[in-house]
């Protein structure tokens, strides 16, 4: 957490309190971690302890004592701090709505990460937005537009029992944000038919329904799931229930004491039930994100893994980093070539995808060099759909495998080195191994892979110029006959 500033003095406050995550279309990831000098300067004048910074900042911000200017600056630092959980919440949501074609986290950011950190804001519940802006002349004027980060701070202060940490409160509020919910209701399950959606409803969704709907869902599952499980012919997507199935479902409901419904009516009721299931609210958790700490009898924020430090003093750390850099280039190169070969071989062995094995490199060429989407590529290579193009070409999986193999090679070398230096025995201690893996990953992700992943997930802004992509493009240009 300590770092040397440009003037040579030590800045002791963690970056997350004076760096803001802001939307940025110039950046591949869709956001940029921007330093805010005003926040930084003010923070350095305080004598807060780094351990309880959120609490102390909140006290100043909500205090209504002292200069409004300093209050607003404390608020700015807090806005920086909560910008990270807001971002991560969006990333997490997108990753859990796993059908990647529907939306990326970048689609969610404009709804919640809209703070540009340029204005000084204070809370004033007398106004409509609950927020007022402080201008250079120290005048307050109501804000037209409510900044979500500030609203998080206001609501955190307003809740009586602060069982959640500010960070986790931010997570929760992001998930509950009305525009996020509306977005998810429209796009979250867009790719699923009503039948697929009904089919996957679980106990926790079931428990939120009224008894009549619970019976209907149970009837549906009893018949529909059974038939899907026993499908012997070519597997299909979830189809509309057949008349026979509907009659069977009705019979079950009648048995449970409900009036009989003709198939058409029943179908209508099922559609209505599915509509309910399209709401994100019925799927998300009601529980606290905190873990209950049995020792203290209280809720505590998540604790990290036991961490054993790698470094033995700066010199060795630098040598190690140098070593890793050298080895990374080699390992990456080998892994990339290996995986391209392996992918083609695997396709050639598969009954279904054999005809596409020799179009694999061409597909990647179109994807990376001509920046075409999978949907555009599919017809050019004789693939039936976006879905098939994704299964065959799967740039995400290629990246994943290259990363895995690269990391494995480096890990083996690192363990060897550690063993030679007497840092570990022939069999590493589990926590040491964990720690080593994590640090190695951070390193390779920072150097190569996070950027490459963001490229693939950037959706409409297709641009492949990460270090990974450049290497791949180089190989593709020299390998394909085009």
């Amino acid at each position, binding site marked *: 957490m300590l770092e040397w500033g440009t003037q040579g003095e030590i800045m002791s406050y963690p970056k997350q309190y004076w760096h803001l995550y802001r939307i940025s279309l110039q950046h591949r990831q869709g956001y940029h971690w921007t330093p805010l000098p005003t926040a930084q300067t003010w923070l350095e004048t305080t004598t807060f302890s780094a351990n309880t910074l959120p609490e102390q900042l909140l006290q100043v911000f909500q205090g209504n004592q002292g200069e409004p200017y300093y209050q607003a600056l404390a608020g700015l630092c807090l806005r920086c701090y909560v910008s990270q959980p807001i971002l991560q919440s969006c990333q997490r949501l997108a990753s859990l709505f*796993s059908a990647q074609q529907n939306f990326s986290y970048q689609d969610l950011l404009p709804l919640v990460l809209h703070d540009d950190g340029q204005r000084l804001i204070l809370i004033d519940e007398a106004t409509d937005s609950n927020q007022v802006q402080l201008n250079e002349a120290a005048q307050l004027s109501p804000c037209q537009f409510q900044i979500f980060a500030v609203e998080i701070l206001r609501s955190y202060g307003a809740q009586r029992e602060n069982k959640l940490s500010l960070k986790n409160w931010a997570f929760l509020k992001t998930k509950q944000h009305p525009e996020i919910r509306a977005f998810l209701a429209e796009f979250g399950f867009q790719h699923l038919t009503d039948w697929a959606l009904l089919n996957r409803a679980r106990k926790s969704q079931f428990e939120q329904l009224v008894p009549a709907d619970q019976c209907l869902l149970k009837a549906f599952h009893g018949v529909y799931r*059974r038939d899907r*499980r026993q*499908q012997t012919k070519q597997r299909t997507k979830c189809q509309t229930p057949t008349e026979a199935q509907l009659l069977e479902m009705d019979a079950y409901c009648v048995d449970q004491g409900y009036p009989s419904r003709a198939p058409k009516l029943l179908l209508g009721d099922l559609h209505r039930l599915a509509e309910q299931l399209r709401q994100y609210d019925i799927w998300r958790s009601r529980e606290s*994100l905190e*873990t209950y700490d049995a020792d203290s009898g209280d809720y505590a924020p998540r604790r990290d893994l036991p961490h054993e430090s790698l470094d033995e003093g700066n010199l060795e750390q630098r040598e190690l980093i140098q070593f890793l850099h050298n080895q990374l280039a080699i390992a990456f190169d080998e892994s990339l070539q290996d995986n391209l070969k392996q992918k083609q071989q695997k396709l050639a062995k598969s009954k279904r995808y054999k005809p596409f094995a020799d179009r694999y490199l061409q597909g990647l060429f179109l994807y990376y060099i001509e920046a075409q989407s999978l949907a555009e590529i599919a017809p050019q290579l004789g693939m039936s759909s976006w879905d098939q193009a994704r299964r065959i070409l799967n740039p995400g999986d290629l990246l994943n495998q290259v990363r895995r193999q690269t990391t494995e090679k480096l890990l083996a070398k690192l363990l060897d080195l550690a063993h030679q230096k007497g840092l570990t025995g022939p*069999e590493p201690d*589990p926590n040491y191994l964990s720690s080593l893996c994590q640090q190695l*990953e951070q390193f390779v992700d920072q150097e190569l892979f996070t950027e490459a992943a963001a490229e693939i997930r950037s959706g409409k802004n297709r641009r492949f110029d990460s270090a990974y992509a450049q290497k791949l493009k180089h190989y593709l240009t020299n390998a394909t006959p085009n």
Partner: protein
Amino acid sequence: MFTQSEFRLLIPEEITLSELDYALVQTWPAGNLPEADQWQAYLNGLGLVAFENWLGDRLPEKRRQRDLTYLSQVAYVTIGDFKVCLLAQSDYLDEQVLWPQEYLEQPELAAHFYGIVEVDEEAETVILRGISRGDRLQTAPKRDGHYCLSLDHFDAELNHFLADCRYLSPAAIPLPVNVFAELKAQVTETATKLGNWFNNVLDQGWQALDQLMLPEAQLAFATRNLSEDIQAGKLLDLGLSLGNEQVVLLVTLAPTDEDDKVRIQARLLPFEAEYLPANLSISLKSKSGKVLQTITSRQQDSYIQLKPFKGVPGKVFQVEVSGDGCTVNETFEI
């Protein structure tokens, strides 16, 4: 708790299922279970097959074995010497997992690793959402017979799991032990090892006769019968109620003609008095505490002793000395 790397948030660990995989899982019997369990067994089965394929590509040198016994709740696969317990769901939008307690606590069911998978039965894909070492889940809260786990309890970075399998041995990940078995082991630990006496090794507290410094008068009641006999005594403090009187528990061992069997005699002598206190009893008890014989002192006994008995090496027995509300128990292993 784990924080997911940005990479993993963008690129989850995804596996494609083939028609063969579905056909295979369909052959797995789910018995006469209600529909909810059948569907769960189906999802667990698909998750298992996907995971096995995934393992086959990445750890091809390790032997794999599956266990479908509890398929309606979890699936097991052993990779090399590591046991993995898997649970499938069709989504993890609520970021929570309720894991039935017994799979983490009972020694026969406990695994080295616990994994959660997301099975999209329609799209024919499985996402490995995370794997955790079993010992890391033990501290999670419990409710209604389930561990209440969150997604963050599981490491989404599956490369860590692969590294663990490659570089660690199973002993590195402690499994819950059978508590009763552990207690039993502990009891035997503190038992006096009579076997060592034949090598002139005495446990702490036990002394050879000449070191006990018994007064002349008692020596007469203490001497060995035969030269092959081994004898040792321990001073027992019977507490305040008997006026801090000490007695000596004298144990004599003799070999027998029958194989390994050892003949044992246990005698109680007063230490610095002429007679034993009255109503002092010595009992022989089995390992489980069943009383096999009891002898009680009268008014002016110079000593009392148990009837000699025989036992094979390894046998555990107890000798209990009690009087006036105070009891001392000595455990022995032959």
